[in-house]
């Protein structure tokens, strides 16, 4: 019998992996990894504001991340600065503002470490239900818009010429990433959130022949990482979030080296 708190942690992790896999594929295909990092940096500001105003922290983090995402798109439309510069400015500015606000609000005590590295064992049943409902909605959107999203990912102008609302699709993806990052905060923590969006798709890539296969395999890879990481954490008493990321990394190394070995063998 596994303890209930571990079961809750596992279910929450599986839900996150199911959504982060397919969504993470777009992060990888569209080279948005640094964008994910920027939103993660802004999460601390979200936490601080949430505590100050007294609203649900996941909502506060999601709201700040969505604002940052919209700012990124708005600044990109100016075409004066490269995207990585824009992302760097917003990442560090939001982190700095978060820390300054935290300093100003001296009365609020924050368990910074818990937010930075996650506290997956503190997940409640309510969290799991909320993640399940939100995750299902995100997956439904991805399924409905899948081909247009892929098309716009391949070539924005080709997609626009044939009727895709490219800006709306990009904004939708960014908002979904913001939501997933907010939800993942408890599980892997602010510092490691992007790992769950990037490592499972990267691990799935050598095994996939179509985008759909890659999305499904990425979700499965994430679930394996969650399971392995929690097992590691349980047996060796290591922190949950980092253990999950280590497990995901091990999976990535395994599929990459298998692919490399196979490539060498097939060349003979």
């Amino acid at each position: 019998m596994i303890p209930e708190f571990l079961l809750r942690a596992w279910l929450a992790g599986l839900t996150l992996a199911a959504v982060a896999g397919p969504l993470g594929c777009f992060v990888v295909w569209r080279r948005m990894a640094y964008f994910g990092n920027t939103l993660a940096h802004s999460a601390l500001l979200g936490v601080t504001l949430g505590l100050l105003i007294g609203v649900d922290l996941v909502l506060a983090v999601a709201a700040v991340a969505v604002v940052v995402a919209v700012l990124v798109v708005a600044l990109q439309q100016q075409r004066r600065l490269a995207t990585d510069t824009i992302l760097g400015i917003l990442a560090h500015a939001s982190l700095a503002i978060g820390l300054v606000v935290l300093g100003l609000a001296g009365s609020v005590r924050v368990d910074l470490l818990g937010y930075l590295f996650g506290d997956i064992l503190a997940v409640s049943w309510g969290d799991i239900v909320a993640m399940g409902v939100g995750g299902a909605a995100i997956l439904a959107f991805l399924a409905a818009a899948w081909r247009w999203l892929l098309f716009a990912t391949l070539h924005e102008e080709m997609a626009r010429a044939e009727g895709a609302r490219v800006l709306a699709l990009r904004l939708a993806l960014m908002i979904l990433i913001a939501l997933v990052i907010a939800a993942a905060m408890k599980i892997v923590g602010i510092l490691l959130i992007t790992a769950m969006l990037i490592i499972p798709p990267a691990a799935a890539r050598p095994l996939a022949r179509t985008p759909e296969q890659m999305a499904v395999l990425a979700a499965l890879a994430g679930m394996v990482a969650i399971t392995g990481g929690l097992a590691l954490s349980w047996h060796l008493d290591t922190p949950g979030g980092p253990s999950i990321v280590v497990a995901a990394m091990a999976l990535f190394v395994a599929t990459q080296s298998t692919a490399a070995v196979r490539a060498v063998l097939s060349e003979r």
Partner: protein
Amino acid sequence: MATAAFDPPTKPLVAIRHAQVRFGHVVALDDVDLTIRPGEIVTLIGPNGAGKSTLVRVVLGILRPRRGRVERRPGLSIAYVPQRLAIDASLPLNVDRFLDLPHRHSRGEKRAVLADVGLADVEDQALATLSGGQFQRVLLARALLAEPDLLVLDEPAQNIDYRGQIELYRLVAELRKTRGCAVLLVSHDLHLVMRATDRVVCLDRRVCCAGAPETVGTDPVYAELFGATAATTLAPYRHRHGDGDGRVVPFEARRGGA
């Protein structure tokens, strides 16, 4: 409607009038007119920086000119084959799934359209493993699946070899005949394009000259724009096909005479 009386028997798919496009202080297009009628092949030529791609973006509806009018026939369906399509190595995509973008098609439809562009048994191949010529045909096949009224090809011959270009242009000419769609083709190679084309529009921010291929080929404005080298580059080809008077003849006639 007052204007209806002046419309030609076939209403244009796209009619651009006096279009001006500026990027900051740079005038990319100035007072440009372009009309594309159903079923005709229009070739857009001009040197680098002439605004060809800009005009294509106006036709596609991606770019709105600062001045002038753009009229599209209501319900017009446009398919676009871009100049370049770089597929990120992280995206596994085979031909079959690519043809499903943005709308899903049956296996049979996909096989048929691949046959139309002269490809067979490539459905399961990754796009990244195709040759330049094959890739170009797959792009064309995807565009055709939408059964467009207008097919826009932006420098389709740029990354394929000479023989591949000839093949591609012959294919485009044939597709126009069998499918009846209009084609807007961008090229900086006048010689290869002219054979199948109905009308050439030569662009250098403004329309320098426009008309049937024969007219443009002999127009001094064109020679001035591209320099004398163009003439020598084109000459061996003309010679090989035996029409020594320098007049450009339709592709079929040329083949018959060769």
